[in-house]
């Protein structure tokens, strides 16, 4: 039996810090200014407490830390408040899961959002719930979408000003995706952006026939926000059906894109589509990392993006201009990007009846787990699956509301979602790496190679440390400048989450 537990390590610092959003900040750099743990004392880190969760499912939630209290979600529909010094619970909110919920990849919930005294949580039955921070009691709930039609809300909400922003998962269920903003006080819908343009909306012409109705375009990982530009950036999931691209000719906007939306109105400012007419389930839901770079002598508001399709991108986040694109893992589905950043597809790589091998495999070169950017090193860090492939099969499938709608199947040598405690394959099936990239050109600066792949995100600190973990069950610290391993501890379970850091009462 696998045991999942929250675990906190004594990440001690003198400067007070909370962790108030899924990505730690609106810029989503997963970089902390805390600096008391250093390369020279990191080896002294010890386990402080363990909190046992009820659920045995995989955690993909990032906790929030506000004034000494941890607020975190547990699978399937539970929110918990925990004392960060002792690990003891203050309260627990549990919402029943109706039997008809049917999510593709486990009863996942990626965490909460907070505004004032209110916490916000998405649910597997596709609702947004507001909870009182002190009691865990429900203040209101609002229906986001119809869960019996395959919609769920697994994303951690993002609070921007007086609005709470969420969208659905369900790209493998024939949903038609969106991103929506709700009034933080009442739950009333303020705006809704259709990630699959409806008839009459710009971009609808990139779909043929009725394919848009089941076009996917989920929004299952929390985006970023630039207060100065007042733009929300959000990654959009795969088109549906995943592996039968033949029934949806066209570029299939805005699947596999990043969209920049006006935070007040939800109006589209710009978009960039990483994988037009995706055939391999390359959701572009990765965390948009917002950084201001000295770009060849001039300041530039940039967005860094390690994409599931295996390419690293740098975009200008004011207008979506393509600046850099370079593969960070082995990929065979394209022969490169053109000057505008659009991929040139390689022949013979479409899913087929007999199966087509493509690198990267279905979990991509990277996926939902958070990357990081350190302003001190200037490097972009990401967790990658290297030398990893999948055989993609296609077939015709009739859409039935709420049921699986993938138009094919996959076969990977590596387990895509979960693993048992045995690792016994060969390196040719793929392996995990932490990579540091130079954002100016996408070149690899260093890498930390693992035996197994990893679903763990990355945290960097002002003391030039990098924290991450892997499916082998290790939680580790690396030198952010060199990639040298400085400390490692086996936790007895896979690490499938992104690390955070905080202080409480000065430590």
């Amino acid at each position: 039996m696998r045991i999942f537990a929250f675990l906190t390590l004594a990440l001690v610092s003198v400067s007070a810090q909370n962790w108030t959003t899924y990505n730690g900040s609106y810029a989503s750099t997963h970089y902390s200014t805390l600096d008391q743990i250093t390369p020279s004392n990191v080896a002294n880190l010890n386990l402080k407490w363990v909190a046992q969760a009820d659920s045995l499912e995989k955690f993909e939630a990032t906790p929030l830390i506000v004034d000494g209290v941890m607020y975190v979600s547990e699978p399937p529909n539970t929110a918990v408040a925990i004392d960060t010094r002792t690990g003891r619970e203050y309260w627990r909110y549990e919402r029943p899961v109706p039997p008809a919920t049917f999510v593709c990849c486990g009863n996942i919930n990626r965490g909460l959002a907070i505004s004032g005294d209110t916490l916000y949580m998405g649910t597997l039955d596709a609702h947004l719930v507001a909870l009182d921070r002190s009691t865990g009691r429900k203040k209101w709930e609002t229906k986001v979408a119809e869960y019996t039609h395959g919609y769920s809300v697994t994303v951690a909400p993002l609070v921007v000003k007086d609005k709470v922003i969420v969208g659905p998962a369900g790209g493998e269920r024939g949903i038609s995706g969106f991103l929506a903003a709700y009034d933080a006080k009442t739950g009333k819908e303020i705006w809704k952006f259709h990630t699959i343009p409806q008839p009459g909306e710009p971009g609808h012409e990139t779909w043929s026939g009725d394919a848009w109705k089941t076009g996917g375009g989920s929004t299952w990982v929390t985006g970023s926000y630039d207060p100065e530009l007042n733009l929300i950036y959000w990654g959009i999931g795969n088109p549906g059906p995943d592996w039968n691209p033949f029934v949806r000719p066209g570029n299939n906007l805005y699947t596999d894109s990043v969209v920049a939306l006006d935070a007040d109105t939800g109006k589209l400012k710009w978009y960039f589509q990483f994988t037009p007419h995706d055939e391999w389930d390359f959701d572009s839901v990765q965390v948009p990392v917002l950084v201001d770079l000295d770009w060849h002598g001039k300041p530039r508001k940039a967005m860094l993006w390690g994409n599931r399709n295996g390419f690293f991108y740098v975009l200008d986040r004011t207008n979506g201009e393509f600046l850099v694109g370079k593969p960070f893992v082995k990929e065979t589905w394209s022969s490169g990007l053109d000057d505008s950043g659009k991929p040139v597809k390689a022949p013979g790589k479409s899913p087929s009846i007999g199966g087509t091998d493509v690198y990267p495999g279905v979990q991509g070169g990277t996926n939902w787990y958070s990357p990081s950017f350190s302003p001190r090193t200037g490097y972009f860090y990401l967790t990658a699956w290297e030398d990893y492939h999948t055989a993609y099969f296609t077939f015709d499938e009739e859409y039935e509301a709420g049921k699986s709608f993938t138009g094919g199947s996959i076969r990977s040598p590596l387990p895509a979602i979960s693993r048992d405690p045995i690792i016994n394959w060969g390196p040719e099936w793929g392996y995990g790496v932490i990579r540091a990239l130079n954002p100016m050109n996408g070149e690899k600066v260093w890498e930390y190679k693992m035996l197994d792949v990893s679903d763990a995100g990355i945290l960097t600190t002002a003391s030039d440390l990098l924290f991450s973990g892997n499916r082998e069950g290790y939680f580790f610290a690396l030198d952010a400048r060199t990639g040298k391993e400085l400390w490692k501890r086996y936790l007895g379970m896979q690490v499938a989450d992104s690390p955070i850091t905080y202080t409480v009462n000065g430590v």
Partner: protein
Amino acid sequence: MSFRRLCRGCLLLFWLAPLEAQHGSIAGLPFSTPKDVQAGQKSFRSQCASCHGLDASGGSVAPSLVSGAFKHGGSDEDLFNTITKGVPGTAMTAFALQGREVWQLIAFLRSTEIAHSAGKAPGDAAKGAQVYHAGGCARCHTDGSGTGGFTGPDLSEIGSHRTLAEIEQSIVDPSAEVAPEYWPVLAVTKAGETIHGIRLNEDMDSIQIRESGGHLRTLMKAELRSWEISRQSPMPSFKDRLSAGDLENLIAYLASLREPAAEGQSK
């Protein structure tokens, strides 16, 4: 189901990839769990049995589908095409089934192929049992009789999981492909000790092995001078060690080693 779990479920020493191209195998299909096979059987009865017979062994208007030989192509893709597109000029029409159902049908056909192979083995299973014991197979394998070694896979239900051709290949070319849970390790410690075993598990820092005597041991990579994980089976080829008759009888014996459920299905 993960590839590795599937391997473990089958407990097979040999992963016969080359055969997949010719005959296909359940493990090579996108939908291949026992549930899929069961669903495939259900579809078969409603869609196919009226022509091909309830047990797929052939009817008055359509051929047997359990022999492993298919007139219009026996690869997985061929079968998929035959089912979904039909065969012009014959009674085989195109079936408007969903892709998943087609794969489940194919999984059922593959399982049937295996289920029927015991009765079709040309050798004498009783004589094959004598070959098994005289040939020393039990030193490394068990046939479910309560004795036997553990260096190689458990063969007590091998007939339920592999076709005759696959079993033959395992005997004559054991290293064609060795399942990862039986990959041998050869390590030398910094102190100069040489260690042999089967790799059971591995991470960045350590390797868990079972030594030939059954002793479980963990090797720390930092303490090793060198280590090598081989894909070669320690089993010799029996190609020239057995007469053609003995080989045939041995295959018949191994094919007769079946799960209780599969036993019922084959009758």
